[in-house]
């Protein structure tokens, strides 16, 4: 039974944390491979082809961001990074490089399991991401016809607003960094123009969220980016 579950690679230098993660994941029915450093992690990732990687950014031999870059050159499997709350820059660099999600230490195992499940779900769905309509709350988005309705009534979105919404909807549950959104919606010349994002995000929330100050679906990841929560 256990042999059939998805394989998860844990790259973490601290043995105690690795032990906790392993026992939690195995308890939840996943197969677990471990690595104590980046070099070993790359070998394991190459040979075992894991379905998901949990990566500590503070590895002894190399920067975790380098691991992501290397792995992203041949794999699109989800990567969840572990980092400290205060290390925003490292976190953003990891996400910009292609990591899917992050967990701030100290994290709870329940939270970790939830992120792992979400990551695996996304990975399964991503091949046929051509979803015609996305529904969240009382909002329905017709991605093909580019129309949005809220509680049955049509909502007008400008082109840019719609592009921004679509960029977030394309990766449900995944953090999309500011730079990624700016590049995708406005173009590479705009990656430093963070104010565009704030302004348009404000518009989207005004139009689509019940309480714009307490967004349920278009969630802020402060200092990092945004996340669409279905």
């Amino acid at each position, binding site marked *: 039974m256990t042999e059939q579950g998805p394989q998860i690679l844990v790259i973490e230098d*601290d043995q*105690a*944390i690795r*032990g*906790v*993660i392993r*026992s*939690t994941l195995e*308890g939840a029915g996943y197969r677990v491979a471990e690595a104590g450093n980046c070099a070993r992690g790359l070998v394991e990732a190459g040979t075992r082809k894991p379905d998901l990687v949990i990566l500590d950014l*503070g590895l002894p031999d190399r920067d975790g961001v380098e691991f992501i870059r290397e792995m992203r050159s041949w794999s699109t499997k989800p990567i969840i990074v572990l980092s*400290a*709350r*205060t*290390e*925003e*820059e490292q976190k953003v660099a990891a996400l910009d490089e292609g990591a899917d999600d992050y967990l701030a*230490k*100290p*994290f*709870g*195992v*329940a939270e970790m399991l939830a992120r792992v499940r979400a990551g695996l779900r996304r990975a399964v769905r991503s091949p046929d991401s051509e979803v015609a309509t996305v529904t969240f709350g009382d909002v329905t988005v017709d991605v093909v*016809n*580019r*129309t*949005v*309705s809220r509680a049955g009534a*049509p*909502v*007008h*979105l*400008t*082109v*840019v607003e*719609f592009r921004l919404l679509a960029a977030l909807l394309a990766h449900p549950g995944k953090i999309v960094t500011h730079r990624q959104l700016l590049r995708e919606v406005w173009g590479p010349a705009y990656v430093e*123009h*963070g*104010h*565009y994002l*704030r*302004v348009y*995000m*404000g*518009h989207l*929330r*005004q*139009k689509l969220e019940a*309480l*714009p*100050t*307490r*967004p349920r679906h278009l*969630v*802020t*990841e*402060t*200092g990092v980016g945004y996340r669409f929560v279905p």
Partner: protein
Amino acid sequence: MHGASSAAGVGSAPANAADARKGGAVLACVGPDTGDEVLHAAARLAGAMGTPWHAVYVETPALARLPDERREAILRRLKSAEDLGATTATVAAQEPAEAVVEHARARHATTLVMGLRPHDTDRRVRFGRGLGERVSAQAPTLVLVRVPAAGDAAAPRRARGEPGPTVRWSRYAWALAICAVATAVAALLFPYLDLANIVMVFLLGVVLAAIRLGRGPAITAVVISVLCFDVFFVPPYFSLAVSNVQYLVTFGVMLVVGVTIAELTARLRYQARVSAYREERAANLFALGRELSGALTTDQVVKKSVPIVEATFRARADVLACHDSGTLAVDEGRARAFDRALAELALGRGEPVGIGSAERPDAPALYMPLKAPMRTRGVLVVRPENPRLLRIPEQRRLVETIATLVAIALERIHYVKVAQQTLLGMESERLRSSLLGALSHDIRTPLTALVGLAETLSMRVATAAPEAAREADQIRDQARRIGQLVENLLEMARLQGGAVKLNHGWQSIEELVGSAIESLGSALDGRPIETDVPATLPLVWCDAVLIERVLANLLENASKYTPPASRIAIAAKEAGDEIVVTVSDEGPGVPRGQEQTIFGKFQRGERESAIPGVGLGLAIARAIVEAHRGRISVENRRDARGEVVGAAFSFTLPLESVPPVEPESAADEADIDFAQPRRGGAPA
């Protein structure tokens, strides 16, 4: 020959051709007899032509021999030319016409202005042919403007009886001695030599006198020699009767030889003196440059430059360097010959003060500001034995050059210091942050394991031993609190370092309020949170993570000190050039007198209360807000009867002009098939 080449140079140089088209510069010739009218004419002419103008004083050996008073008058004339807007220069030369033409060519001057005196039309003037005529002969293309003298009052000629250059009587004595020796030698040789050769002995004496003693003594020697020759060697002996007219030729030749040699020697000596002086000046500048390039401290600059300045100008000198604050560093211990007030004046204005300057020209010293590219670095004080020296434009320029050299050396030292300090600061900042980072990592790692283990345990025994599961949950909660505590302490240490690196960006307060509420989650115990954040609020230039931290800390503080289920309100509004964010609660309010201390470290509203926390939350909030140039404060909210109904914490953030957001183009709008033809009312 020379004149012809000069003329060609003036007429055909390409730069000159361009200048000539727009009417090249004007050059005024200043001499001992130049009146103000020449300078005024030149200034007017230059003004009318819209070109710059120059004034030149060609100092010939003859002029160099003028008494000090008259040379001063010339220098004053030059100074007034400078005041009229001219660039001035003093040129030492033998032949003024040549020097003037040379100078005119160098300055691209096409018009020459010089004085015209009645005696200039007379052929008996000092220059033989008038200066103007000689200049015209050398450079026919130069336009020559002669300005008649306004009257002798403007530039008084030397009155009769006025003492000329000091006569050195000892030289005449020497001339007599030479004649005596020549006579004695001639007497010894007389029996053996022809008269024609006896004359040679006297000629030798005259040549010697001319070379060693100058023109006057040489002429004296000629006269005495001819007399002696005539009296002692030409028959009839011991009488002045000139039996043969041919000795007049002897006299004439000796006179011409003597004067010519004296004149040539004087010229050579003058030029040697001038070039020796130039060489000394250059050597001093080289020495100064070399010394200053090796100086590593301000003190060294002062110590190395002062002796060179003193030697160059035969003066007492001092370099007063500025402190970093911009005030003059005056060592009271050194009793120096300068006026501190004048030095401050020069520093303040950035203009020279003292000898030859617009300000206090009567002062005994010159105060030259040390102007470096970035700012004035101090004052160079020069107090020469002879103040006239510093009125000569060349000397003045030399002072300026030295001042610039010293200023640049001082500036270089200043920036070396700045670079060192920056490096030191960076190094200590790097150490500090790596230490904090390591500490935070080392504490977080076991805590993460602890939290994970407690949670796993709790899940394992959830059904079998609910009691144990609850205890495991408590272990997890306590571990998390330790984690938070450590984070707070480290954060405080980081913020206290002074150099907080803010990760600025344009942030929406609405968004930060939302994520702060979200981040607290269960800590709010289900207290209702009211938000009043207008969607139209401008973006704020701040560090999102830190400002969210401020909001979270204020919310956490409110939830800790207020009864369960009481409301917490967050409001933000624009007030002038800042944004005010207020978090108000329905708690007991802040004890009287603690409105300030509550933001201190390890301060809590109630001592030894059961409420958890070490009281770092508000201190951190204050540190962050102040790093953003904002203010944080608290006041109690009162109802109509004046009863305290809660506390209101407010902080401000300065508003800056948000860069514009390009509106979406009409083309973009058009290619979407609208669900509604009109906009949904959202602001663009």
